């Protein structure tokens, strides 16, 4: 019960802070918009070509904005040394982790939901029928990204060159998420039958479960000397 309270309070704190400062989500959204813009300049695409590469562009944009959000998640804890206070909370490392994962997941998912219409409009996609499947893919991939990203955000926040080290450490580890998310998104956008990309959804579920557990366990060692 106490753990649940801690999770709730952490999420509450992150949300209130975000509502008042509007730093994280706005920077994520604008960064992603710029990424989309640059990609659309780099490739001149007709609709057929767009269908082929759009999933990749989408997930590149989501991954990089996600890394911005994840980095912010713990670097805000550095003001007034609040991280020390979190480290000294008795018997709640796991709950803090879950709270942070929930908050990060919510921010990233929100940004993805906000950006998706942009993709639909800018690249002329037709997605009405597959929207629920796409949301499922977004959900699963974002859980994976935030589960492992929160761990590495907490880890890199305490070292030098943290802005560089977070993507350097995180991106090789989320290769499976990126592959699975891109393939599943591509499948859904093409309107393929579910059976053709089911395996990617399964892979995402496995990744989510494995890395939530592993990161939950490792987070204690990140926070606790």
């Amino acid at each position: 019960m106490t753990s649940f309270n801690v999770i709730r309070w952490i999420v509450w704190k992150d949300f209130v802070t975000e509502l008042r400062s509007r730093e994280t989500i706005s920077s994520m959204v604008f960064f992603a918009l710029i990424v989309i813009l640059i990609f659309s300049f780099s490739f001149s695409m007709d609709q057929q070509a767009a269908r082929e590469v759009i999933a990749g562009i989408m997930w590149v944009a989501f991954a990089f904005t996600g890394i911005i959000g994840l980095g912010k998640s713990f670097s805000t804890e550095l003001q007034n040394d609040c991280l020390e206070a979190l480290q000294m909370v008795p018997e709640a490392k796991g709950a803090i982790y879950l709270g942070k994962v929930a908050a990060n997941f919510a921010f990233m998912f929100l940004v993805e939901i906000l950006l998706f219409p942009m993709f639909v409009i800018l690249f002329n996609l037709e997605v009405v029928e597959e929207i629920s499947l796409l949301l499922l893919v977004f959900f699963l991939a974002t859980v994976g990204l935030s589960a492992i990203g929160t761990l590495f955000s907490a880890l890199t926040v305490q070292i030098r060159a943290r802005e560089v080290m977070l993507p350097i450490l995180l991106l090789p580890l989320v290769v499976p998420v990126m592959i699975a998310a891109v393939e599943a998104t591509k499948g859904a956008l093409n309107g393929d039958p579910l059976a053709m990309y089911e395996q990617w959804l399964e892979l995402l579920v496995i990744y989510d479960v494995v890395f939530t557990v592993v990161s939950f366990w490792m987070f204690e060692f990140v926070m606790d000397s």
Partner: protein
Amino acid sequence: MIACHGIGKTYGHFQVLRDVNLAIAEGECFALFGPNGSGKTTLLKVLATLERPSTGHFEILGMHGLKDKEAIRANLMFLAHGTHLYDELNARENLAFALALRGHHPTDRDVKRALDRVTIGAFADMKVRHYSAGMKKRLALAKTMLANPKILLLDEPFTALDTAGTEILREYVRERLSDNGTVLLSTHDYDKTRPIASRAGILRHGALQETAIEELQSDDLV
């Protein structure tokens, strides 16, 4: 009750603490003097279970400092130089959040009383971002008062506090001491510390030397 046995700590190439032995009984207030960079904050961080000592071990309230960390944390407050406050939250929310993580749920009346005691009751709904350094310090003190721990670690508590604030802090320390609490504070300010400290020691290059507080000269405390 705090007992350190041969605590040493190294950062990279620097030996910050070497072989610190220290025993503070219940109801005692130990004042830690020493020049900048002598390792005062590091010693407090080690005792607050934030850093793992490179050598040695310590006990707090009879609990092993490396094995029973969680139990120690529940009975300990560290009033650090950074105030552990969130800039975007107001005073009430900060208190509610910090205490909720520790498993306390103070009533509105308690919160109001604590804020009034540190005389920032009027600013209870203001974002901490707009607070001055002294007000932040007072708010952190209010947080400590609400948590009411057995062990109190204070890192340079008098900086940024005015005379009235200093008196509030000393009053609270006395209250803790009479309640059999243990206080360890690091400071540069001999005059402000003198009335509450029962024992004192000087850290030099990470080595602790205990001294009777009356014998301290102000030039010792550079």
